[in-house]
């Protein structure tokens, strides 16, 4: 009977959960350890942290394990956990310009003070399946281990590429002390959103959504022709202020990716100078996340348009639809029973069919 099939009751949920557990971990296979995921599925962990809006490689790895590798589900688990954490304090502003670099490139200038650091990247590799990984031996090459995050250890952090453009007047000056940033997880915000709120929404957006929208703006539905002024991956110190102590105390480092992207600004600025400056799009994410930060910077730049002409320039269109957790939830909810509404739909459609079947002269 159809009735039983759609309303299984509590027993059905319990059995389904047990079955899920059986599928997650087939008998006879060694359990994958959270530490293995954390250390070897590095980029999946970093993406889960970015979309989950929570910096914790271990918990992100746990979420990936529990979700059987479903990225959106893993980010969702982290977000739900994040909801239960008290807000202890806000850190002083982080200064990404001072990060301990692992990687730093500029597509704008060949030579930059401080140099380009290629770092770990797949950009210039050939995408050939490496069959030797099918049965990988334990790594014994000790010479590789000290390379992580030590690239510029000790050296003064180089200035950002954008600083030089700003000095020449090609980029508008940074505003001085700006308003404290909005937190979209703590404040109800309305459209139009302040830039800080947009950046936060972008930073935790679903990568596929960011990619599709950013791609649309560079490909045909929009007009962002971006130049990556600078892309940095590195470790950033996080500090807190402790009552009684004058200087903030460093409590640890987080790995982050930052992108500054420049693009021509053809609209009149406040002084009426048309097209004489670049504008900057900004991207930032927890972990090593180059693709998503470039997309974020493109969308940040696109949404600075005074009047939106393309979907990616329209902040309501972009912000309302990029959150993976919101979008997946609503998409999945169509699996819930809808028989009351469907009955109502049937009622209207049958009424329409009756009206259509009635000869015209008989109609009132």
């Amino acid at each position, binding site marked *: *009977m*159809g*009735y039983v099939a*759609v*309303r*299984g*009751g*509590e027993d*059905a*949920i319990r059995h389904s959960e047990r079955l899920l557990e059986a599928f997650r971990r087939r008998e006879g296979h060694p359990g994958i350890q959270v530490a293995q995921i954390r250390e070897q599925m590095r980029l999946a962990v970093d993406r889960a942290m970015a979309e989950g809006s929570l910096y914790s490689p271990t918990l992100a790895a746990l979420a990936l394990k529990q979700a059987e590798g479903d990225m959106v589900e893993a980010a*969702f688990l982290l*977000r*739900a956990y*994040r*909801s*239960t954490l*008290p807000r202890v304090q806000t850190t002083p502003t982080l200064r990404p310009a001072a990060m301990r670099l692992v990687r730093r490139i500029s597509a704008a200038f060949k030579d930059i003070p401080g140099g380009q650091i290629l770092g770990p990247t797949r950009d210039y590799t050939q995408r050939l399946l490496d069959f030797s990984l099918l049965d990988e031996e334990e790594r014994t090459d000790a010479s590789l281990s000290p390379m992580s995050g030590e690239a510029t250890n000790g050296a003064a952090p180089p200035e950002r590429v954008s600083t030089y453009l700003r000095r020449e007047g090609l980029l508008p000056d940074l505003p001085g002390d700006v308003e404290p940033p909005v937190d*979209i*997880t*703590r*404040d*109800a*915000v*309305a*459209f*139009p959103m302040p830039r800080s709120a947009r950046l936060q929404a972008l930073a935790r957006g679903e990568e596929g959504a960011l990619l599709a929208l950013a791609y649309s703006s560079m490909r045909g539905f929009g007009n962002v022709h971006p130049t990556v002024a600078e892309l940095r991956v590195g470790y950033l110190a996080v500090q807190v202020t402790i009552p009684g102590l004058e200087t903030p105390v460093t409590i640890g480092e987080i790995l982050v990716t930052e992108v500054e992207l420049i693009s021509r600004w053809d609209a009149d600025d406040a002084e009426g100078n048309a097209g004489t400056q670049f504008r900057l799009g900004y991207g930032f994410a927890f972990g090593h996340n180059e693709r998503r930060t470039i997309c974020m910077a493109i969308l940040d730049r696109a949404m600075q348009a005074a009047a939106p002409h393309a979907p990616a320039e329209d902040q*309501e269109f972009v912000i*309302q639809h990029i959150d993976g*957790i*919101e979008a*997946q*939830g*609503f*998409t*999945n*909810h169509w699996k*819930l*029973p*809808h*028989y*009351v*509404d469907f*009955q*109502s*739909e*049937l*009622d*209207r459609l049958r*009424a*329409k069919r009756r*009206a259509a079947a009635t000869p015209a002269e008989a*109609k009132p």
Partner: protein
Amino acid sequence: MSYSFAFLDEQSKRCVRRALLKAVALPGYQVPFVSRELPISYGWGTGGIQTTCALLGKSDVLKVIDQGADDSVNALNIKRFFAKTAGIRTTTLTAEASIIQTRHRIPEERLRADQILVFQVPYPEPLRRVEPRETETRRMHAEADYGRMYVALYEDIVRHGEITLPWQYPALVNGRYLLSPSPIPRFDNPKLHQADCLFLFGAGREKRVYAVPPHTDVHSLGFEDHPFRVESFAGRRCSRCGSTDTYLDEVIVDADGRRQHQCSDTAFCLRRRQDPAVPRGWGHDHPAGVAVEARR
């Protein structure tokens, strides 16, 4: 480690309560609130759950229904969530509950002044079908500029001879704000009008709450010559309790496609099986509560 009573921390619950108080003070007005992520997915009742989180006290008795049914898996899952995080008593008896969380139905049994019905709302914005932009719909509400909604209904009549909106049928609250009653069938719209209980609506993904306080006028949109109409179940009855005045689900019972009908409100169906004379009590089987544009 443990979670707070009813999952959300006290500060977050206070945020929701402040928004709910504002919503009650402005019947039908959509109040923005900060929606927290829950361990249950957006689109599965997170607005209703956060509202219930904010309302629950230790002595509350909770009923959760989905499509009218107590035994639907989603309703059970939400009830399980509250039983686990708040340890409160749950029930399937409508009269016994102090808070009822619902998806897509208003119970057949009239609710009392000491009961609260919490709706899970997917689309809080009744104007969304005529206007996709939030900035524009906010303006339309501010100016009570609802002409486009009436035009949309009128165009429906011109094209189809009928208003073809099936569920989530818009209604004017207290003569001021246009409200989406969540995807309840039209059958349930009249129950919102001059009720004794408080109706609270929570939309988690869209981050809005709104309310219909007790004894408030709620008029479903319509025209003098094309009044608002509820679904017709003429000639049909519940195959279990025999009711002819309740909202019926249609079920396909065999391979030949034969249909039967059953009450969508499972708790009320049970009561009717025990006592066929139990009244629904909403007192408006006639299409009362109809806003007629021509009168304005």
